[in-house]
């Protein structure tokens, strides 16, 4: 028994050095060397200042931007405390929230016609989902075009340029990165 305790202490110390110091240190060193941008959080800079991360959703409320998926974090798009709504699918709370989101989307600055794609009215698991579906982007295009006084065609073309297909044509879903698309929109306006 005493021997077991002694070995446990010594082995845990050695494993702590190997798995808690050397291992993460090696990963950090290789990451910094080979993938420095990704390792630091895929940050997006504008005029030398970080405006966000390409992988983390940020809030867009104004009609001339594409809106990301709803976020259930407190407050929304809180990149320091991720999480989903955890609402049961049949709960009254989810029904009320979806009704509110539908009203927002169809509200003062209505976007597209036709039914709203489901990803635009459901909160993501992390609250920080950086993507919307191509269908949701096209659905919002008329609103964005009107607010920016550009043609629907120009906005739709911007969307088409930003559609990422399933990886290798196989894995995952086709998607549009909201921050990158919105950055391009600002370019569109500047050109006019």
């Amino acid at each position, binding site marked *: 028994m005493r021997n*077991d305790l002694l070995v*446990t202490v*010594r*082995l*845990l110390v*050695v*494993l*702590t050095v*190997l*798995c808690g110091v050397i291992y*993460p240190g090696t*990963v*950090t060193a290789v990451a910094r060397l*080979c*993938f420095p941008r*990704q*390792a*630091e959080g895929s*940050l997006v800079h504008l005029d030398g*200042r970080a*405006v*966000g*991360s390409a*992988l*983390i959703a*940020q*809030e*867009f409320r*104004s009609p001339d*931007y594409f809106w990301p998926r709803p976020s259930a974090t407190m407050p929304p*798009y809180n990149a*320091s*405390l*991720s*999480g*989903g*709504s*955890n*609402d*049961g*699918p*049949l709960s009254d709370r989810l029904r009320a929230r*979806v009704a509110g989101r*539908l009203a927002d989307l169809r509200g003062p600055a209505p976007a597209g016609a036709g*039914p709203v794609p*489901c990803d635009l*009215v459901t909160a*993501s*698991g*992390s609250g*920080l989902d950086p993507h919307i*579906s191509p*269908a*949701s982007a096209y659905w919002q295009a008329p609103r964005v075009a009107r607010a920016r006084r550009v043609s629907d065609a120009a906005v739709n073309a911007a969307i088409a340029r930003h559609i990422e297909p399933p*990886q*290798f044509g*196989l894995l*995952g879903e*086709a998607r549009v990165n909201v921050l990158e698309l919105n*950055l391009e929109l600002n370019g569109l306006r500047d050109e006019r």
Partner: protein
Amino acid sequence: MMARDWLQIGVYVVAVIGLAWPLGRFMATVLGGQAPRGPIARVLRPLERSICALAGVDEHREMNWREYARAFVVFTFGGMLVVYTLQRLQGVMPPNPARLGPVDAYLALNTAASFATNTNWQSYAGEATLSYLVQSLGLVVQQFASAAAGLAVMAAVIRGLARRTTHDLGNFWVDVTRATVHVLVPLALVLAVALVSQGVVQTWGGPVVARTLEGTRQVIARGPVASMVAIKQLGTNGGGFFGANSAHPFENPTPLSNFLEGLAILLLPAACCFCFGEMVGDRRQGWTLLAAMLAIYLGALAVTTATEIGGNPVLARMGVDQARSPLAPGGNMEGKELRNGPVLSAVWATATTAASNGSVNAMHDSFMPLGSIPLLALMQLGEVVFGGVGSGLYGMIVFVIVAVFAAGLMVGRTPEYLGKKIGIYEMKMAVVVVLLPPLLVLAGTALAVVTPAARAAMHNAGPHGFTEVLYAFSSAGNNNGSAFAGLATDTPFYNLALAAAMVLARLWAGVAVLAVAGSLAGKRRAAESAGTLPTHTPLFVAWLVAVVLIVGALAFLPVLAIGPLAEHLTLWAP
């Protein structure tokens, strides 16, 4: 479902088996007693030896089952103590760039029990609670150590079946060291770097403050994430860096990272089957266990994929478009990430509950009621459908013992497995293991629903709230660690009750199964005769699946009826 969906599920299953096969054979050389071979092993062998020397371990000393079990228990409690202490002291120990204070005693105890038992239940959100030091030095180390301990106990159990007339089951300390050095660390290194290439962060630089396009301030939490995610996936740990776990884009940013992490969930548990076949000298026995596990897993996957693609009738009535197409994921997207969509979320959810991983890439609390039944069931079956690294295999061997015993009763023969006669003692221990999950899960759930403070923690009302509690105890009582995360479990009641369930589940099953191994090791190998039940046939696979499902169904159908089944029926309530 689109044709691509079938293809991506198919590629996933084939990749798991295709990689698990060589890995399992390699593990058999690592744990089989011979010195591991190959160029990488030649480099790692000196490392392994120096660790043994530093820890004061005599490589050649064998242990009987009692010594082995004692080492396992002491090592587990030792790990708990370290994690507990680090959390209590985190306020004064760097690196802690977010300046987080010490963790309160109940939560620290729960987290310590959780990570030392390979469960990784999390009553906290990592980015807001734990410093970089605690995450790396405390949690990551246990994610290696607890997985290695599972592999060690498995190796001892297999030796008990393979050896004859001996008391020796190997040396726990050597097994832990070999599993860590030759299997877990190399795999984790490769996976971690691959994940960074996809965008998983790995930095000690602390949170970054961004000024968004609309001019608000966004504080973005970061950290040494990739190194933790790799081992949390490989070691059936599941405890993530961030609260949202692998739904967080910094833990799982692309479909490829999702594929690799999903692969890592099942890789080692599947490889354990091949390792087993190799070590007992009959590969068909390993294939048999894998076939039984796969059959149950694929059945569960089919149900959950169907419900999640099918979407939510409540939203359909509100006019929301949930159709699946090349331009839209469709389905029940509440709590899911767009890049994964309903299909990859269902694949992950069933894999993480089949293996006792517990990481999530979507919020299980928001799955359709029928889709959540397979998730609950896979845990409640005792984590033997793949199960934990090592522990899934020895759990399944317990069910094999029950199956050959039941079959033996039917035909009036003495039950045997791999030439070892199954006696009264083995059966008693097997029943002790098999009945433990129902005891912990049902008693724990019952206790919670009659305790007002515990009921108040429910996020959802009605049967869904009950399912949240049932899920918590199913998860902790089987060392899974995933959650219906709406339940607010950072309370003294849940922290203590779930910690107790996790420790009991891990140690009780581990010790009982070592007792079986000790008894079997002492027996001779009986010659095969015409009356021997072959345990490598499709018939035996079906029999084993039936035994696992019947034992589970007898215990859990009633609670599933008052939870998710009742909730599903409310769809037609007026």
